[in-house]
């Protein structure tokens, strides 16, 4: 075999391996559709998405996942309210304030936080935070939106902090120097020069952090309380989509409508996170800073 033919075969082999990710993504979609779509024989897509009642085991069952979707969105929203400022502040701290040795120490700490298994955080919420919340606020249950949001926030912080830090780090040194030369304080430089310049990266970080929170399973399964209702207060329990799937999959009779409904819920969750990721990708490419020459 000629050398160039061999090189071509090798190249094709590597190309094929690179396509595996796409393939897996495709397979995920195919299998979610295959097992999820049959539910629409039993319920219309509109009633499925916007139905207010999730009573999958009743006769006749109701497969309305709107409370589940709202549950997911609500915990993600509150988690973001906590995680976005903390995450961005942590990024500013690392890139602008920390001395090199502190930085060396603090960055791995953030990474370790990212590495904490979610089941452990869920356990913490269930065994420690929930009883405490119940006592302190004299509420019916500590397994509620507040508890789940706080824990989800800590799972989203590492994503937000590390990607924001990369973005801030990528802001050209000349920008800062120019700003200082104009007599701006460090604070003014950070707020008016660095953060605006890194904004696309920071937005990406925020979106990916939210995607992480919305898809997280064990924490919401163990901590969110599991009531499939539209919540009225931050102390109400909710049943986010991943929790519903994880809790009910085992009990649903194989290939029953309930089983299909759970796969269809997985579809909704998948496309929701996919949308988050595509937006993040778009933002990071569209507004990419390519050095000082772009301005």
């Amino acid at each position, binding site marked *: 075999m000629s050398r160039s033919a061999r090189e071509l075969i090798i190249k094709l082999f590597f190309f094929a391996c690179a396509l595996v990710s796409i393939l897996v993504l495709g397979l995920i979609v195919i299998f979610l559709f295959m097992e999820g779509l049959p539910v629409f024989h039993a319920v219309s897509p509109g009633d499925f998405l916007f139905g207010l*009642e*999730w*009573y*999958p*085991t*009743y*006769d006749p069952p109701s497969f309305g996942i709107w*409370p589940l979707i709202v549950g997911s969105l609500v915990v993600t929203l509150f988690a973001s309210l906590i995680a976005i400022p903390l995450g961005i502040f942590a990024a500013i701290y690392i890139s602008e304030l920390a001395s090199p040795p502190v930085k060396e120490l603090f960055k791995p700490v953030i990474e370790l936080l990212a590495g904490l298994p979610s089941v452990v955080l869920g356990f913490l919420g*269930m065994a420690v935070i929930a*009883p405490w919340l*119940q006592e302190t606020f004299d509420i*019916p*249950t*500590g*397994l509620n939106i507040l508890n789940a949001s706080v824990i989800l926030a800590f799972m989203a912080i590492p994503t937000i902090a590390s990607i924001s830090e990369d973005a801030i780090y990528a802001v050209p040194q000349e920008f800062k120097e120019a700003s200082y030369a104009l007599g701006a304080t460090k604070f003014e430089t950070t707020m008016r020069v660095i953060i605006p310049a890194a904004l696309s990266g920071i937005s990406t970080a925020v979106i990916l952090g939210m995607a992480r929170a919305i898809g997280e399973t064990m924490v919401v*399964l*163990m901590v969110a*309380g*599991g*009531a*499939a*209702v539209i919540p009225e207060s931050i102390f109400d*329990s909710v*049943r986010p989509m991943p929790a519903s799937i994880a*809790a*009910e*999959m*085992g*009990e*649903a*009779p*194989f*290939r*029953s409508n*309930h*089983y299909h409904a759970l796969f269809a819920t997985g579809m909704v969750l998948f496309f929701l996170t996919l949308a988050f990721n595509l937006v993040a990708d778009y933002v990071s490419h569209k507004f990419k800073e390519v050095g000082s020459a772009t301005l």
Partner: protein
Amino acid sequence: MSTLVSRSIIAGLSFLFLFAGVSLAETIVVNGSTTVLPIAQAAAEAYMKQNPDVNISISGGGSGNGIKALLDKTADIANSSRFLKDGEIKMACEKGIFPVTHRIAMDAIVPIVHPSNAVTNLSVEQLSLMYQGKITNWKEVGGIDGKIVIISRDSSSGTFEVWQEKVLHDAKVAPRALMQASNGAIVQAVSENKYAIGYIGIGYVNAEVKPLRVNDIEASAKTALSGVYPIARPLFMFTNGWPSGNIMDFINFLVSPEGQDMVKKEGFVPLY
């Protein structure tokens, strides 16, 4: 690169072979209801001690999961806290599988409240109205003035199904009910909340919560077995056809006096 790839493949394969053939023991795969888990586990432990050449593997995906595994022939025994459903029977026929039912224990479901709660007895009717959200204050049933916090099992659990069938008579649970994923979680929630009511398998009652009488009948082994206590159900193991060999032996062990002792120790109601 080729060396790297082949090395990792070899490493992967040798890791796979590492434990292929480590143990030649016969494995009985048990899958299904989380309610039956403690019984199955205790029995398996004792059985394996007596028969060291048998390996029993137990998972608790849920009743539906267990029956699915039995129909797929990936499990030898399916634990279930309910009988087969229509769809499952149909599927079994299609697959040429004949699930045989073994009753292995009784499970009585008991309403529980906080120990400080003055209420000691509720009728099935009152329980039903409470869970539908039509009785909302403890004073309506003779307790203190306080809003009732209803705690329920997950709508997909076997325990919930019994509650739905025997107490609610297929009425819908108030959506405000807090859904918990396990008996233990309900005990924990009720023990920490003096306005709460929950329901659990009789085996899970402990000193932290107060069991209620239902229709003036106390939940006990005797009342559950005789059918006097209204909220009780049998627990099943399904096998594919009439079992033989070790599977038969294991089920026989479970229904023997020794096995039923274990059922009792785990807090369920033995068959005799």
